[in-house]
């Protein structure tokens, strides 16, 4: 229900695990945490949406903001999402063409490790 945020490091990537509902009320907390991570020097950030059960346009706006911030800092930003209802949201908004979306944290961290490798995330 409530938003939960937890950070861990995997293969030199900062992985932010998000759970609960990301909406107009909780999205500012997600934004704050992402800004803190980038300000603290994180440059390869993966947001794991595996435990998110609701995501709205405000949450999507926060994720785009993080993508822009990391792009400006020569960093990388990826999402982990395998739930069909959430994937549909990315497709409908065309944001699946903006974010790299991976099925697992392992796929996300190895893909951004090897960005020139051309391997498929799935």
């Amino acid at each position, binding site marked *: 229900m409530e938003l939960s945020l937890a950070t861990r490091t995997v293969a030199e990537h900062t992985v932010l695990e998000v759970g609960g*509902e990301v*909406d*107009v*009320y909780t999205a500012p907390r997600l934004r704050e945490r992402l800004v803190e991570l980038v300000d603290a020097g994180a440059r390869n950030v993966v947001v794991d949406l595996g435990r998110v059960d*609701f995501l*709205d*346009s*405000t949450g*999507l*706006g926060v994720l*785009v*903001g993080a*993508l*822009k911030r990391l*792009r*400006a800092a020569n960093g990388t930003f990826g999402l982990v999402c395998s739930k069909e*209802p959430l994937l549909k*949201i990315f497709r*409908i*908004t*065309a*944001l699946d*063409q*903006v974010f790299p979306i991976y099925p697992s944290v392992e796929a996300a961290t190895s893909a951004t490790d090897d960005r020139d490798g051309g391997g498929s995330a799935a």
Partner: protein
Amino acid sequence: MATVRLSFSPAPVHVRTARLVGVAVARRAGVAEELLDEVRLAIGEACTRAVALHRQYGLPDLVMVQMSDSDSYTVSVIDRAPIEASVGLAKLPPDELADEALTDEALTTGVGFALLAGFVDDLQVRPVEDGAGTEVRMVWPVSRPPKQR
């Protein structure tokens, strides 16, 4: 005649309440289980839009949500913002979504409208009949057993 009517002050914290009520009434009305996630998202987007407009214009007025389940499930979300505020509703093309020049507000508005249009087959955005404001009207089919004679 609305089955359930809900009014809330334009604060983000109440949008979740509107979503919960909207889905509960939809379930009772007989909206198919597989549509409920979309109902939840669409009602949330419509209410988020209304709250954003009231805050943008400094309006303390309540946002109204009306739910009716006569032949279909109809949800109307009514704001009291000036009509011209609704003109900005437009779906953004993919190459503009992460454009540096696009403000967070414009992005969220565009994405919110894309979600509404994408998830609601029967969607109308129209001026309210009396005074300032816009009604976002969303309709979903209901399936329920035929009434007993």
